């Protein structure tokens, strides 16, 4: 926590100046500065960048084609698949953790530092503040998946031979086509994290303790995962946050299979709408002292 206080409180902009500058896009840019100005954000992105490197080095050192199934098993033959495998491996844990930390921080962090008080009285308006927060979170989600994409690209090209990409359907496309599809996967996974980010934003609006917001958001994520693992309640499974998360792989079919992808995006949109609205209701009806 102390590092956090130094990071924000010791920044170049005192809280009054922050409040004054937050109009429209200025508000958004200052949010981005806030998110990406924290050492914590860069540590998280650094950890994500290490994932492909560790996976790649491990496969390289084990030396064999291995018996691994799916994307991991293809990495040794084609470095391209390190990108996809790393994204797939980061999805169940690393990426949600990063999003939980950043989103739990967003409002609760400012409340704990006292800066939220100024923001709530500022002329920019609370609705706009919330919008800027959400957009900044979305940008972080994208930054996180693109980090994995880029690290996977570099590690894959350095450690392994690369070549044409064999799709799930058994047909082969050029490496450039494959890289575009992998980029699409990174964007889709970022979009898959939006629902969780919205939950985090809402929880964050409820408390002035960032750690509590992070813990609660992560609990919601874990509970969703547990519910998804209980077969007896499979009627609710399609409504769970993570139900469509693996649909990104449908981009690697020939032709891509859009049904599940679209469904997942709609689902994330629904979570975003519900929890963003809840966060808005909370923030706009909240006392200035929180």
């Amino acid at each position, binding site marked *: 926590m102390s590092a956090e206080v130094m990071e924000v409180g010791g920044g170049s902009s005192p809280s009054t100046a922050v409040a004054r500058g937050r109009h429209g896009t200025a508000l958004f840019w200052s949010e981005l500065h806030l998110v990406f100005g924290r050492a914590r954000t860069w540590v998280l992105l650094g950890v994500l960048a290490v994932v492909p490197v560790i996976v790649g080095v491990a496969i390289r050192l084990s030396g064999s084609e291995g018996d691994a*199934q*799916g*994307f991991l*098993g*293809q990495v040794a*033959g*084609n470095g391209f698949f390190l990108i996809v495998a790393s994204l*797939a491996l980061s999805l169940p844990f690393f990426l949600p953790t990063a999003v939980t930390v950043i989103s739990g921080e967003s409002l609760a962090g400012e409340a704990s530092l006292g800066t939220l008080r100024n923001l709530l009285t500022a002329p920019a308006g609370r609705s706009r503040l919330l919008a800027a927060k959400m957009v900044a979170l979305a940008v972080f989600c994208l930054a996180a998946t693109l980090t994995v994409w880029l690290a996977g690209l570099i590690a894959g090209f350095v450690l392994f031979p690369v*070549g*044409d990409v*064999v799709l*799930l*359907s*058994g*047909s*082969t496309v050029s490496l450039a086509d494959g890289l575009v599809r992998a980029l699409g996967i990174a964007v889709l996974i970022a979009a898959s994290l939006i629902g969780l980010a919205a939950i985090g934003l809402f929880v964050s609006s409820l408390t002035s303790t960032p750690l509590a917001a992070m813990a609660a958001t992560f609990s919601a994520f874990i509970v969703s995962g547990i519910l998804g693992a209980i077969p007896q309640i499979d009627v609710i499974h399609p*409504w769970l946050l993570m139900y469509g998360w*693996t649909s990104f*792989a*449908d981009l690697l*079919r020939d032709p891509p*299979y859009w*049904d599940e992808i679209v469904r997942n995006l709609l689902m994330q949109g*629904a979570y975003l*709408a*519900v*929890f963003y*609205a*809840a966060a*808005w*209701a909370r923030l*706009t*009806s909240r006392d200035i002292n929180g």
Partner: protein
Amino acid sequence: MGTTRRGRRWLVPVTTVAVVAGVGAFGPVVADASPDLPGITAQDLLAKVQTAKVDGLSGTVRSAADLGLPALPGMEGSQFPDLLSGEHTARVAFAGPDKARVSVLDNMAERVLTTDGKTAWAYDSSEREAVKYVLPARSTKPAQPRPEKDAYDPQAVAKQFLDAIDPTTKVEVTGTERVAGRDAYKLRLVPRTDKTTVGSVTLSIDSKTWVPLDVTVMPRTGDDPAIQVGFSSVSFDVPAASTFAFTPPQGVKVTEETVPAFKPHSVTPPKSVTPKTTPQTPRSGSADDRPDVVGQGWESVVVLHNADLTPGTNGPLDQLLANARTVQGAWGSGKILTSKMVSALITDDDRILIGLVTPDTLVAAAPKAPR
């Protein structure tokens, strides 16, 4: 800002939840309202279905099965016909008399089965293995590398139920609906016998091509479909010939088999979930291993021979058998396994009787079953 006005803001998220839930739950219902179609008698519809012929089609098929089978670890996968468990999505394409392609879209993987009439390919993306089957010249029926091909073809599934239509079946047109964006009649087949576990079979039949687009099998007890196979999208354009070609990608292990071999697993239920099962399973096995069919129509029972169910070698199945009810008769004795839809009788002389029938029907069929 008064307290009431603040409280009212919470109506926004609450309304959002209601709208999302409403659209999610009832949106599809509204979109699938019954279309207006000219009336047709069950007999006319039946005749049209049985003579329906299309040169080719392609589309996406969704299947869901809940036969109430026990989930046995180790029995999933290739030994266990896909159709019999869980939900699946497959892309299908058919053309001419003998061209077919079925791609089962698994989670982050895909299994492709394709045949152009001369060769057939089975490709598994997760194993990165491809098997090439060189099919015999048209001496027999076009060979089927795996039974999945039929399992994902609503037309084939429907045909097997239509074949079962005889005086023991009540046939009626129960309305219209939209399936895969096309107007369809609903044809319902109800067995008149109570010896089967099948409550009813509903076919959704396209009003232009008379091709069945959806098959729903309801059990005698319960409200949830036991089997549902249907198109979620369909096109009746003949797919290009290249659709059915397959070039094994680099780095994939390719094995070649001349005889289309499908090794029946000893505890595998009948390949087609039909009352009148055509013994399509093993072509390579000896005559002794060939399954027989006892009984007719809805009461058909499939008999598998030489089932090797020595205790202690089948893992979880042993447990299941240990708890199973023992039945006896002049024919010998055996164990009865039952589920919502499927019943099986495993006799002490290594025969397995399986059918969509009640356990009593199985016992009655046991003396008639060849050894």
